[in-house]
């Protein structure tokens, strides 16, 4: 039995942040009904990456919305809204990521939904919180990375701002919302109380940087300084970073500089000490180390470093990763199938419960694919448009 079996989630959210949270809830066993506007549905259906169209929609939509049902409804239409209100009565969790004020105007804000369903758990993700100078800005990942200082942590000193090349803030906000919803669901299971969980991408972006921001706060407010070369963390000394070798790259985490000097037979390195010096002189150290490591292959270095318990690794691209037994043993890839028979490969849930990997074979839904079945199952009645008003 999956942990969330028997729970119903009604998800109004679009793009990545909210839908990544409901994907996690679905994989943990909840039934997720995605409410989408008729016609185009979730805008993510047409948000293309590298122009890849799969069975009519974008690859990212398929990745984010597998294992869910789709109910098409126009929330501004009284008949559709009445059906949704009836559905919300049965929901354990209701969630959205509209901009502040939208759900209030539509009559699906927390107070309205709570009036229909007193023990509901209501979740919302905003870009920047409900008030404040940014509240009307688009809650878009790159903008959040840019406004929170994150772009000054990756890349080298002369790289300028370097965004992390994934929608990382969306995913963090989704992960945090899932935590808030699950904590409230636990309380509901024990005490029968509903609750409200709110997350903003802005708060999630700062939480992600809690270590570095705390350092900034307590270190006289000095901006982070990345190393000239091989930067992997602006706050760590040498050798922390990735280095070019004769045939590829080598990642080196923490390690004693004098010990590395001996092990790698690198005379230039012997002049440096550990501790403060490994931080203060990290550019010089990384420079010496970087030139030296280019003399031999990655494998040659690993065979010297690993037996000595130095924390190091080869640097792989996906082709090499997918061929590696260390990856294969995870069984991270699963094939899922849509109702029309179209199947595609994607990743599974990253959490294991009771020793079992969680696979789910259901692909993403076509827009409105489940309207008929849901109307029948919940006896939703569009004539009852006064319902709950």
């Amino acid at each position, binding site marked *: 039995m999956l942990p969330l079996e028997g729970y119903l989630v009604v998800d109004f959210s679009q793009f990545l942040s909210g839908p990544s949270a409901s994907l996690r809830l679905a994989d943990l066993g909840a039934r997720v009904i995605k409410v989408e506007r008729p016609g185009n549905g979730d805008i993510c259906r047409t948000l293309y990456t590298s122009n890849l169209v799969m069975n009519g929609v974008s*690859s990212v939509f398929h990745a984010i919305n597998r294992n869910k049902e789709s109910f098409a409804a126009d929330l501004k239409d009284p008949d559709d809204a009445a059906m949704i209100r009836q559905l919300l009565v049965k929901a354990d969790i209701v969630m959205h990521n509209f901009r502040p004020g939208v759900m209030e105007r539509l009559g699906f804000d927390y107070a309205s939904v709570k009036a229909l369903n007193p023990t509901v758990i209501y979740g919302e993700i905003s870009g920047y919180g409900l008030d404040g100078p940014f509240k009307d800005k688009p809650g878009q990942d790159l903008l959040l990375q*840019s406004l929170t200082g994150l772009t000054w942590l990756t890349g080298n000193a002369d790289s300028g701002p370097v965004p992390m090349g994934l929608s*990382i803030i969306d995913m963090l906000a989704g992960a945090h919302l899932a935590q808030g919803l699950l*904590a409230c669901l636990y309380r509901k299971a024990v005490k029968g109380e509903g*609750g409200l*969980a709110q997350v903003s991408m802005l708060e999630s972006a700062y939480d992600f940087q809690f270590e570095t921001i705390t350092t900034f706060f307590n270190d006289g407010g000095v901006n982070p300084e990345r190393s000239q070369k091989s930067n*992997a963390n602006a706050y760590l000394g040498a050798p922390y970073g990735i280095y070019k070798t004769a045939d590829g790259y080598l990642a080196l985490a923490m390690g004693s500089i004098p010990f590395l000097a001996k092990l790698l037979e690198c005379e230039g390195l012997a002049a440096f000490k550990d501790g403060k010096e490994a931080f203060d002189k990290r550019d010089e150290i990384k420079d010496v180390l970087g030139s030296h490591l280019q003399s031999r292959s990655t494998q040659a270095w690993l065979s010297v470093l690993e037996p000595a318990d130095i924390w190091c690794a080869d640097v792989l691209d996906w*082709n090499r990763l997918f061929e590696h037994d260390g990856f294969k043993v995870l069984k991270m890839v699963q094939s899922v199938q849509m109702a029309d028979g179209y199947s595609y490969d994607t990743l599974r849930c990253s959490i294991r419960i009771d020793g079992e990997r969680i696979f789910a074979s259901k692909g993403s839904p076509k827009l409105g694919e489940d309207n008929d079945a849901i109307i029948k199952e919940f006896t939703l009645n569009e004539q009852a448009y006064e319902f709950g008003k």
Partner: protein
Amino acid sequence: MNKPLDGLLVLEFCQFLAGPSAGLKLADMGARVIKIERPVKGEACRQLAIKNLFVEEDSLLFHTINRNKESYAADLKNAEDLERVKKLIAAADVMTHNFRPGVMEKIGLDFESVKAINPKIIYGVVTGYGSEGPWAAKPGQDLLVQSVSGLTTLSGTAEEGPIPFGLSVADIMCGNHLTQGILAALIKRVKTNKAVLVEVSLLESVLDIQFEVLTTYLNDGGQLPKRSNVKGSGHSYLSAPYGVYATADGYLALAMGDLSDISSAIECDISAVFTDADSSFKNRDEILDCLALSLKDKTTSEWLAILEPRGIWCADVLTYQAATAHPAFEEIGMKQVLSAGSHRIETTRSPVQLDGDKLYSSKAAPKVGASNEIINQEFKL
């Protein structure tokens, strides 16, 4: 306030970042979290400093991750200490550890043994790479996990080689996933009254954050990501204009948007490189270069004044100094102050607001074994 996890007892045997960051999330939502640490030295993160910053004898890093927790010092190799810890486990709801495979079996605190002590325990385990296969014994360290996962091929420019994310992203996401797993397990336990095992690994978590782009890779004939060669490009899979651009006095971020609107707003002629709808992918680098030429002519605030009213998705690119001095930072109330003895530590709060409340806690990280006496009394150990 009534926090959702009030009354839950969590024992944290975890060290470093991934597991303890989960403990912190649970603590902020109301759980009582007790770190079980070896006497005197305590958990290893106490000595792991970034920028060599310490608050008294413990690193600032340790303080950041372990606020709002208690500490119980116990030597798990000492029979009497182990007996006390077992009694504590009998009273606990959750325990977490990130020892390498085999360590807890040797001590006798593996999942099967713990179930005999407490048949309702939620048992959370963090590993680097899972518990089987050729990488199971490798050190579960963030940069190394990023390096084997392909993540380093997504940021920066192609010619720079692998560029890791400049934060411990594998640890942090893994901690988030552990939190989710533990909470789901607690919900399951309400129904079944039985113990639940929750396992996460840094590698699975760092693959999970690549799930969108890996789904593209898996269905696109295995094409590797093609990073741009233009400095500031934001995403190897997204078309122009996605990226950050130098302006006359700083930088400007431009997210996805209609290229005709954007180019006309900034008076940039892209007609030579933007010929049809596919151009934004096909000629990404040429378009990025072209936009960059125009954008360096005005200041960031001048561009924002032109672009924002047109609904174009853009933002200033701020440093920590500028971001935390901005009124928006004050408005979200993200900062909180801890009092550690005579020291005052400024840090961030939980990112989740519950029942309309921000979750603050001024309790600083404990010294090793700070709560031994109280816990011995309270649980009659």
